[in-house]
């Protein structure tokens, strides 16, 4: 054990804090620290309707006007109940739609389309949002796994266990074929342990750097020996399992992989780790220990239940605090699916992976073992341009004059072009049109100066009324109004 001090950085208390919050997250946190001072919000409490839209963005991908009406009838508490208990919500329309689309899930692009459409049309948005969370945390990438059907299988595992007990999720993913290939668990043998899974299990999945030693990595790798794959299924090969005593995080015994996970989740650092991950994903990044404490408590006393933890998060004052409002930068997935859901667009999957790539995210193919850095790292000059160009493709197809970018023409089931004019029925003043679009997409909550820019943009020249405006001019400005709203700083935030 002594020797390992030299292969591990010495940690001071101050540094440990940095490591837990910053080092693991890499560039995301690095940039976050640069912009943290700019991530302040107003202190005004949120109105009930803003709270509802905030909730729908965080637990899903926003809502169309008609969905929003349904949730308004349920009220905030009723909506939380419905979102959380999603297994009681009928999702047959989604399944019918996906069956009809008949994606070949053994291929990467159809697999990505399949998931994006699930997110766009599910009646259980929280189920997909949690699946996206687990995909980002307990991540694997098709670039190494190679087989899309194994990535699909892992994705289904996350969906089916999204609110399970954390140790069960860790044990399940440790036997997941895609994960086993991704982190070389399948080639971990007695006498020649492969440390890849053992290290990332602790560093990235459950504890964070600074809460274990290099010796713990080696001992854990020994415990996982013999876990392998046979015919692409988990197989415990006794011949290759190291049956000797292991000393791991101050426990000694003849441990196997499940024992290792049980020891890990009992560490206070693990409870804090997973609570922080969920808090930072759903509420706001990098909460203080003091803020986190009651949530850690709930997680531990519920015997490590993710459902108990997220329920507490979604009903907490912190979740609806001004500090949490617009405190997250949308991922490309959230940005794109948010547009499809918000505008009620019809999509069949075509074109979606391409725009996702340009915006910097390929589902099922994160850049490395830490998943996507996320946060401010989502926004670079290149990805910002790609987001606006996505908005351009969508909004310039709105009137049906251009083909829908995300659906093939289908004579048997013609896709109705999104009808801009329906938004302007009964609208007599430019401000009405602007407020309608802002209300739909950004909670109607922007700076008055921004609202005025948009009003000016859709005000016909020379005092002409909207009713008498040149129709070509009106079409251009109507499309432009939607484009500009999807381009707004506020629409990039969740």
């Amino acid at each position, binding site marked *: 054990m002594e020797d390992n001090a030299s*292969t*591990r*950085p*010495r940690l001071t208390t*101050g*540094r440990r804090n940095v*490591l837990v919050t910053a080092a693991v997250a890499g*560039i995301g946190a*690095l*940039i976050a620290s640069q*912009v943290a001072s*700019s991530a302040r*919000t*107003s202190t005004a409490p949120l109105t009930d309707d803003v709270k509802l839209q905030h909730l729908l963005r965080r637990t899903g991908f926003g809502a169309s006007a008609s969905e929003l009406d349904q949730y308004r009838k349920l009220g905030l508490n009723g909506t939380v109940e419905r979102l959380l208990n999603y297994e009681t919500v009928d999702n047959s329309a989604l399944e019918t739609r996906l069956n009809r689309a008949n994606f070949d899930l053994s291929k990467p692009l159809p697999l990505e389309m399949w998931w994006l459409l699930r997110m766009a049309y599910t009646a259980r948005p929280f189920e997909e949002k949690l699946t996206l969370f687990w995909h980002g945390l307990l991540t694997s990438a098709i670039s190494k796994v190679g087989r899309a059907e194994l990535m699909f299988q892992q994705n289904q595992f996350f969906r089916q266990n999204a609110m399970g007990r954390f140790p069960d999720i860790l044990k399940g993913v440790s036997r997941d074929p895609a994960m086993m290939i991704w*982190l*070389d668990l399948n*080639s971990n*043998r007695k006498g*020649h*342990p*492969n*440390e*890849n899974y053992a290290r990332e299990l602790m560093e990235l999945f459950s504890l964070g*750097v600074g809460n274990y030693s290099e010796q713990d990595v080696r001992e854990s790798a020994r415990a996982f020996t013999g876990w392998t794959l046979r015919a692409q299924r988990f197989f415990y090969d006794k011949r290759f399992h190291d049956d000797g005593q292991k000393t791991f995080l101050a426990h000694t015994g003849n441990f196997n992989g499940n024992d290792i996970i049980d020891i890990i989740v009992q560490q206070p650092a693990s409870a804090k780790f997973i609570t922080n991950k969920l808090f930072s994903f759903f509420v706001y990044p990098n909460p203080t220990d003091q803020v986190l404490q009651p949530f850690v408590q709930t997680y531990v006393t519920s015997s490590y239940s993710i459902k108990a933890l997220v329920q507490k998060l979604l009903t907490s004052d912190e979740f609806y605090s001004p500090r949490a*409002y*617009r405190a997250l*930068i949308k991922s490309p997935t959230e940005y794109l699916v948010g547009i499809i859901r918000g505008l009620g667009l019809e999509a069949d999957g075509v074109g979606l992976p391409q725009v996702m790539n*340009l*915006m910097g995210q390929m589902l099922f193919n994160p*850049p490395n*073992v*830490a998943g996507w*850095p996320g946060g401010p*790292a989502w*926004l*670079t*000059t*290149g*990805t*910002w*341009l*790609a987001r606006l*160009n996505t908005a*351009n493709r969508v909004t*310039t197809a709105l009137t049906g*004059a*251009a083909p829908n970018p995300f659906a093939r023409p289908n004579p048997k089931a013609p896709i109705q072009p999104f009808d801009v004019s329906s938004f302007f029925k009964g609208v007599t003043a430019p401000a009405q049109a602007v407020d309608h679009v802002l209300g739909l997409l950004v909670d109607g909550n922007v*700076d008055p*100066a*921004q609202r005025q*820019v948009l009003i000016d*943009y859709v005000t016909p020249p020379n005092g002409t009324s909207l009713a008498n405006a040149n129709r070509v001019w009106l079409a*251009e*400005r109507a499309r*432009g109004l939607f*484009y*500009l709203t999807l381009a*707004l*700083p506020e629409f*990039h935030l969740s």
Partner: protein
Amino acid sequence: MAVLTRRDLVRSGLAVVSAGAFMPTIFTRAVAAAAIDNSVSSSGSTTSKTLIIIQLAGGNDGLNTVIPYADPLYRQLRPHLGIAADQVVQLNDHLGLHPSLKGLKSLWDNGKLAIVESVGYDHPSLSHFQAMDIWQTADPTISRHQGWLSTLVDGSVDKNGHPFKGLSVGPELAPALCCPAVPPPALSSVGDYRLQPDPRFPSGRAARESALNRLYASYAAPAPYAALLDSTSQSAEVTSTALQDTVAGHQPASGANYPKGGFGDGLKLLAAMIAKDMGLRVGYVVLGGFDTHSNQAKHHSDILQALADGISAFQTDLTGHGKADNVVVMTWSEFGRRAAENASLGTDHGTAAPLFVTGPQVKGGVYGEPPNLGKLDNGNLEFATDFRSIYATVLEGWLQADATSILGQSFPRVAFL
């Protein structure tokens, strides 16, 4: 530096300032901001020298890159993965390059390839992300949150209106360039790096972009992420226009055969920017896939091949455009790998490793201490040259920057520059 946000400029009603022929009027406010910014900053160096960083992401296996082929311990540690003496590209009687790096041999023969052996730092981290942060911030204590090259690309736009002091290839901005007030551009492909107009109403472009500009100008602190959104959009607008107008149609010099994929495309773009005098000081490109825990032989061979092909094509391209003398290329990786191979025919995370520095102005040769395979620390190689000595050398010896101020302390330079 003094930060003049677009909001300030819009509010003060600053007149349009001409900042180069390629700038349409609606974006000149942003250029004016940067130009003014630059004129008040102290870093307005007019050097035409460029540093290109190639990050080998994942932890490159140094022992199979620069190979101590004559050392019997090498064969003992690498019974399956070891490269045979008659396969290596021999540099002398004990060192050789991986066979895939044959393309670098002519640089070596011409005395333009420097190899620094056993580069690392004290108490190394075996975590990818911690180690990357250490290298990117030049700070083994991870208490600094500023990329080691960020001050060199500060201001983003130079005095002549060239908005490309730094460029990061790929969707993410390299943390080494992070984060001056105006972020350097990050892009994957030139063709997509522009704001597309409404195809049906091209004449409405100016009105729409002007409204866009004003919407961002009206989104100000303390609104969340106001500085990030404003500076990113500003930098995107300026750089995309400049790039389309100058680089889009550029052709590589004949004989420059870049490898397929993002790495080769990135080097090609960087060469184009240098050929077009876009003011580039630091270019950054990533070659990934070095985390070779299993079945490493074929894969490692392929990515080293891409590395050699990329560097060769880049040098050929720059030479063809008469710019090679202005450019130095260096590689780095967050760590090397364990000295002994593992049972999966791969290697686990390790510590010290060699890196390359090359270019016509580089003094070729082997620097630093060779790895001591007889003296491992828990199976890992000990470092001999602090990575910040390499940084100090390129900062002072090439970019004429104040290394001590950037790195926070003084490090001995290595003699390759």
